[in-house]
């Protein structure tokens, strides 16, 4: 075969049999393609940092993501199914495990302010964006540039509770129970500030936890007077038990609690006959009339077989926000973080079930006041959000 010079590879002209250069080009192109693809993850992983019992939302989010048209990057949601529990050391371990997940581009979690605070530095060191769906502690403001909080902070929620208590319920004397953690203490301070501004007397401030002797603590606090309203800056266990302990001891019992208390049917069970005296703050209610809420409820019912809880839309918004970010900017942590920072600035806010989401300024807080009626939550109409 007559030798001839021809173009080969990078444009160098060499002499050689003409039949050899074509396969060489193909092989070379394939190698370049593979080599170029080697550093690009084919899947993006979103971590969901909640205990196993809190992962129902993941199924709904997966279902929604699966309905998207196929994109360049496949998005997976994973959660730690090995480590269970809530204490901060557990949250730390969960965060460490998740941070080592290959192709992880972001995390939703953790449940509660304390756990989120403990985990935030781990994600910050690894450069992983963390969306905290329901944590309200003001300390989360100092969690670093990689932490993004969806819920309003405790001062906003506390102000809502205080205003409702003073204006809607007409309270002049209040008894305040709070959990001794970042959530409870923060909410307590927010309520106290609002009540002080309205000259509402706080008869006592009592620290409690799920294992506390609530009746004893309640009895001790009643020595300071009979309250018009009892405010509980705590979770469902404390709230339910306080309501039950107060029943019969406080005339016209009304208990107002923060978002951490809204877990049905546990709250109603714990409160017993006092359940219907409980008012509770929620980020969302299933009877929300907007189309996004309707669509979410339908999907949730179809996937899980039951109705979503008031916390589920916040978690769902956090998951879908990360998924959207990956779809927009690719599976790169820094790019995802920049995307989140740009919402409401160079990009329009993200439309979530709980409203428009932006981290550049305080969003309109997705707070509603509800009360328990027959084991279900009912929206309290006409409540002004501070």
């Amino acid at each position, binding site marked *: 075969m007559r030798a001839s010079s021809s173009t080969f590879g990078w444009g160098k002209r060499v002499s050689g049999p003409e039949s050899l250069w074509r396969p060489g080009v193909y092989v070379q192109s394939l190698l370049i393609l593979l080599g170029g693809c080697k550093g690009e993850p084919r899947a993006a992983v979103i971590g969901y940092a909640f205990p196993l019992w809190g992962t129902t939302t993941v199924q709904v989010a997966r279902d929604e993501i699966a309905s998207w048209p196929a994109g360049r990057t496949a998005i997976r949601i994973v959660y730690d199914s090995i480590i269970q529990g809530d*204490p*901060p*050391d557990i*949250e*730390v*371990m969960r965060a*460490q495990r998740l941070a080592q997940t290959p192709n992880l581009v972001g995390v939703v979690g953790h449940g509660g302010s304390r756990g989120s*605070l*403990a985990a*935030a*530095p*781990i994600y*910050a*060191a690894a450069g992983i964006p963390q969306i905290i769906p329901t944590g309200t502690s003001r*300390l*989360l403001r*100092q*969690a670093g540039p990689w932490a993004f909080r969806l819920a309003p902070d405790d001062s906003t929620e506390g102000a809502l509770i205080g205003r409702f208590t003073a204006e809607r319920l007409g309270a002049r004397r209040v008894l305040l129970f709070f959990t*001794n*953690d*970042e959530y*409870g*203490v923060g909410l307590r301070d927010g309520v106290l500030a609002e009540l002080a501004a309205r000259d509402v007397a706080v008869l006592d*401030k*009592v*620290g*409690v*936890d799920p*294992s*506390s*002797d609530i009746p*004893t*603590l309640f*009895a*001790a*606090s009643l*020595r*300071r007077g009979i309250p018009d309203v009892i405010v509980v800056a705590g979770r469902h266990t404390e709230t339910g038990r306080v309501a039950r302990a107060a029943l019969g001891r406080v005339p016209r019992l009304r208990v107002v609690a923060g978002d951490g208390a809204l877990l049905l049917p546990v709250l109603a069970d714990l409160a017993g006959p006092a359940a219907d005296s409980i008012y509770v703050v929620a980020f969302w209610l299933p009877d929300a009339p907007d189309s996004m809420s309707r669509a979410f409820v339908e999907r949730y019912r179809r996937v899980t077989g039951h109705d979503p809880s008031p916390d589920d839309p916040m978690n769902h918004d956090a998951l879908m926000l990360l998924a959207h970010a990956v779809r927009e900017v690719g599976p790169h942590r820094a790019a995802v973080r920049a995307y989140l920072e740009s919402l409401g600035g160079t990009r329009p806010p993200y439309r979530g079930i709980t409203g428009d989401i932006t981290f550049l300024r305080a969003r309109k807080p997705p707070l509603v006041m509800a009360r328990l009626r027959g084991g279900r939550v009912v929206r309290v109409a006409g409540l002004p959000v501070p």
Partner: protein
Amino acid sequence: MTTLRRLLQWRGPSLRGLVFLLVGAAGAYAAIVTLYLTLSVGSAAFTLGEGTTAIVALQDDLGHRQALLNVALDRCRELLAGTRAPSDTEVDRIRGLIARGSVRERAEPYASVPAELRVALARADEQLSRLGNALSEMAALIDLRRTAEGRRALDRVDALQEAVETDLARASDLARADLMARQEALRRATRHAVRDGILLLAAGIIFLPLALLVVRRRVWAPLARLEEGLQHVSEGDLTAEVAVLSHDELGRVATHFNQMTRVLRDRAEEQGRFAAAGELLAGVAHEVNNPLMAIATHAELRLGDGDLADEARVEMQSILRQARRAAKLLRGLLRFVRAGEKRAAHVNLNDVVRSAIDLVSYRFTVDEISIEGRLDPSLPAVHGDANRLEQVLVNLLSNALDALRGVQPPRRLVVDSFVDRGRVCVAVTDNGPGVAAEIAERLFRPFATTKGRRGTGLGLYISRQLIREAAGDLGLDEGQAPGRGARFLLWLPAAPTLDAAPTAEDVPAASAPVASAPADGSLAGIRILLVDDEDMIRRPMVRFLSRRGAEVTEASDGLQALERLAAFAPHVILADLRMPKMDGAELYARLQAERPAMAERVLFLSGDITQLAGRGLAPVPRDRVLVKPVELAELEQRIQEFVRESIRGSAGDG
């Protein structure tokens, strides 16, 4: 194979490349050392610092909270152990302590601590919260005066306190171990850094002489050779050559230097030849002036004869005209060859143009060139050196004539003078081949010639310099179409005075005679001593002066003149400058020393006015020099003026 051949032929990097390599190597060396130290030691130090800060902050927070809760517990113990009922204030204070000790007040950086310690600290945090809650219950029991239950609850609280202390102790141990490990890592990194730093320094020291050697060979030595060469050239030695030992930038500079000195040598030789030719020409011109003066003087004398036949008169007039023309040409040539020192004055460019044309006119007939043009009669004067301006015009005309040789007839040369926007302009235009664009851009640069080895390449360059010195400019008119000839334009600013400079035709007549001076046209009563070694010049002059009524005594040289002066007191001494035994300048100097009054009566005759300065000649007053060949009428007039002025002044010693 080609690559190998190229590699073998490679002579090393260029100077730029070498400098780049050395600077790059030095920079890389410094960067490596710095980066290495920063990374190895800095990293460990940073880790130690950051870790220490975080661990201390976390432990401080836990310790502080533990202290608060311990205080609350102690208060509770006191109240439980006591018998009196606690006040609300005391209970509130306990509750305040419990609330502050139960929870952190700020977010702490867990990330900087190792995993095991992180978990231990978080566990201690949780235990403190539990302890706080238990204390809350105890405070409630105390508040309710249920002291017995309160004492029983102490056990649980004590257990929780122990758990807190255990967790805190464990966390402290882990923290201590971690900090020790970081400190050891820093110590180790420092040791390695010192060791490696010494190695790197040693490597640097080894390479330093090598680098110096390379720099010395490639930079210093070539620069020293160049400097030496430049010094030789500055001292006038144009034969200096620099050895070209490399092919890099300095080698190329050396090559260019050698080429430059070669060109300078060639030009200097040419200039020397021209200068020698000029000297020769001046000498020949001077020698030719004497016979020309003899011819002109004889012709004038013959024309002064009243009985000369008409035909002979016409012939004598022609002889006189040609002799004067030859003399004028020689004068112009001498002026051109010896520019001499600059003498600026108001000059009429038309006169300069005419003089320049005269100098080159001999080529018009030979080369079949027609000369045209219009000289503005009202052209304002310019301020400049007429000789230098004439040199410029001759250069432009010569270039035009040379260009016209390259075209077929008709060959036209056009010279115009005009005023344009307040500037006095002269344009020299020819219908030669013109100036190509690529030549035009370097036409006025030194050593740019289109005449090969015939040209010095300095004509236009020097011409432009001369015009610019006179505050004008000289340039090629680029408006000429290609191939349609060339037009050079020079301009000068008009001189400040309002009137045009006097042209040669406007020279006013000599001033009016002083009382008691001889009558116009007559030299009666004037005694003249004529000193000239050329008999053929002396005799017709004596005859002429005698006819005009002067009493003339002759001498053939300065010595003879001095002898004559012992017995003869002339009104005027007419002395040639160049004479054997004692020339005119020496005679003047002797008279100045011995008979100053007589020295004031000397008028000089010279065949070459440009030789008055230099060459060891004593200085003579220039206003008393008559340039040969002197027209007899002018000679007579000058003698009359001279005598009048002498009479006006103080009397000599006779």
